[in-house]
């Protein structure tokens, strides 16, 4: 296989072999510790603009299948693995990972010492990087260092959100509830999880004014996950503020948790190397129970910035104590920083969708 190179903005160079599409790609280099679920991760809009590194050393073993997609295409800017499996085997597979990335035009690199790469990121924090099968390390480093627009300056949500509203789930006649979704980078399994509970969803572009969503008179609002820095999303925070004030049940996941916190007066900060994996322990402060969760986020809410009279931190991460969940003290509004919809990851916390449905039941009376 042809040579390829991965360069980090701190000057680190990793030589490997190219797979997937040929060419050059730039992005923020992040790592995910999950052992399975590479296709779900590749298609998760929250990875937009990022060069995703899998710490598990053998990737591609079970091929790719349409049932595993979480959005309409590959979202990552590039893909970094230790070893791409030569042979894939699973009854569901429709193709190999290599062919899948060729078709989607995604540049991949293998043969990288992903343990060393992860150490560099853990020590220095996430940083910009480039993968190329056509340019030299020197050329890439020069471009990285002269570039003025890093990952944090871009509104990634505007790039991944739906262009037109669409609906998902049971027909209007069969639906128990109707939910309006603010799409900052929704994952299909959230829509599937709601649909399996009899919830029909209408998914709106992130720039939709709140009045337009409120006008559809839904039973509740859902704030989706999504990529990038929430501080750049003033328009969405304004929308969320109005949705909270509409008085209906609101549920948020991941970026939705951050937007909710911001709308209630809090602010976020960037984590040094984020939480990306399927093994994060989270403690529910209300019950004392601990669950293992699926995570993918680079920012977190500052708990001290939240107005204690209105908001309660309900869950924390046991690894670093960061905020993992909120609830409003007076309104049927709550959010979770991790991914109860899993896909990929453990299914231990999908009761939050039931909780959302129950709160719509209660509100409907």
């Amino acid at each position: 296989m042809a040579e390829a190179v991965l360069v980090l903005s701190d000057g680190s160079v990793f030589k490997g072999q190219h797979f997937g599409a040929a060419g050059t790609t730039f992005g923020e280099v992040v790592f995910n510790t999950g052992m399975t679920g590479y296709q779900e991760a590749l298609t998760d809009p929250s990875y937009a603009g990022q060069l995703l590194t899998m710490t598990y050393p053998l990737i591609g073993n079970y091929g790719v299948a349409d049932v595993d997609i979480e959005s309409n295409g590959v979202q990552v800017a590039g893909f970094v693995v230790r070893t791409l499996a030569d042979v894939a085997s699973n009854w569901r597979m429709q193709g190999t990972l290599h062919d899948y990335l060729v078709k989607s035009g995604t540049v991949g690199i293998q043969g990288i010492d992903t343990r060393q790469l992860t150490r560099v990121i853990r020590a220095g924090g996430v940083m910009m990087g480039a993968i190329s099968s056509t340019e030299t390390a020197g050329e890439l480093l020069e471009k990285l260092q002269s570039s003025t627009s890093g990952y944090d300056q871009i509104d990634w949500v505007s790039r991944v959100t739906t262009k037109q509203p669409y609906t998902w789930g049971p027909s209007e006649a069969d639906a128990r509830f109707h939910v309006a979704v603010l799409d900052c980078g929704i994952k299909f399994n959230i829509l599937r999880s709601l649909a399996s509970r009899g919830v029909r969803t209408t998914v709106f572009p992130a720039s939709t004014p709140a009045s337009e969503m409120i006008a559809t008179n839904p039973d509740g609002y859902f704030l989706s996950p999504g990529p990038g820095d929430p501080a750049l999303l003033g328009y969405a925070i304004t929308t969320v503020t109005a949705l909270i004030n509409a008085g209906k049940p609101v549920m948020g996941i991941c970026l939705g948790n951050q937007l909710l916190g911001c709308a209630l007066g809090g602010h976020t900060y960037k984590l040094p190397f984020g939480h990306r994996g399927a093994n994060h322990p989270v403690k529910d402060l209300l019950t004392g129970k601990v669950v293992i969760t699926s995570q993918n986020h680079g920012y977190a809410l500052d708990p001290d910035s939240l107005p204690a009279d209105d908001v309660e931190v309900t869950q924390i991460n046991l690894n670093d104590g960061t905020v993992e969940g909120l609830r409003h003290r007076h309104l049927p509004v709550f959010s979770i920083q991790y991914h109860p919809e899993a896909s990929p990851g453990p299914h231990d916390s999908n009761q939050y969708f039931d909780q959302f449905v129950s709160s719509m039941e209660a509100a409907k009376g």
Partner: protein
Amino acid sequence: MPRRLDLKKVMVIGSGPIVIGQAAEFDYAGAQACRALREEGISVVLVNSNPATIMTDVEMADRVYIEPLTPEFLEQIIARERPQGLVPTLGGQTGLNLASKLSELGILEKYDVELLGTPLSTIQKAEDREQFRALMREIGEPVPESWIIDSDAALAELSVQDNLPWPLIVRPAYTLGGSGGGIAHTIPELLEIGGRGLRLSPVSQVMIERCLVGWKEIEYEVMRDANDTCITICNMENFDPMGVHTGDSIVVAPSQTLSDKEYQMLRTASLKIIRALGIEGGCNVQLALDPDTYAYYIIEVNPRVSRSSALASKATGYPIARVAAKIAIGLHLDEIENKVTGRTLACFEPAPGLLCCEDSTLAI
């Protein structure tokens, strides 16, 4: 909950001689457990009949007894040492059987010794075939359909039942190495193999079961504490499918041919089972997964530290026996320090950046 302060002295039973089914892995587990208990300021009384083990080194426990592993000897040691608790799940099947015996004989009650960790009733539920199958049906986890047949008439009646899950495997009861059994694909084959099995079995009994030969053989090592927090340490996939004994095969950790949906489906099932059984400590769940659909069956559960937990420990660096010992004395997973990182807790799921293979055929 912090550790129970009423426990000052605890007894640990080793696994005895190293033979097939009681491999050196239990020495590794027992030694880890002794250290874990002593770290908490508990005085450890260790009994093992095998002096060729690490756990019987004088520095591993406060008192080391190298005596035969029989109820009579254990009673004498208990009378002399008067431990408040006994950890039965770290010495393999030998430790577990002895603990059950001591309980049945009333010795534990007589000397006021509490069984720590997974309750005895749970162990029985996991090990008794019928009780286990009933529990699985109760919680909606699939077990392979099976029938106990003790006459030619019953065999003939079964063979014409509608919707039998062909092919069927026939296992005569109490024949040496299960000889006389076989796989039946048709009614005539079932009558022939079943009939032969009935005549070969000294008790004229055969078990007929859905045949899972060729299905993927998957295991999950899971842990639970008294707060009902459950985690997976590692899963494993047998290189050879069902039908080839694990001892003749290669085990790979973690699984390599499961997609996330399959991995999580079996993980969820394993955690549901450890919860339903009420295990406090480690547990091994074995499952068969259809290579062509999402269908699976629960094969069996080991409610203790097993051969597989040693492999899972080595593959992930997660000290299963150490953590199981801490759980047995009342600690919760989120109160146990992770020795590997020194700053996080034992309550997380290892994400090993490696692939680990164990070839059992080389070990024997």
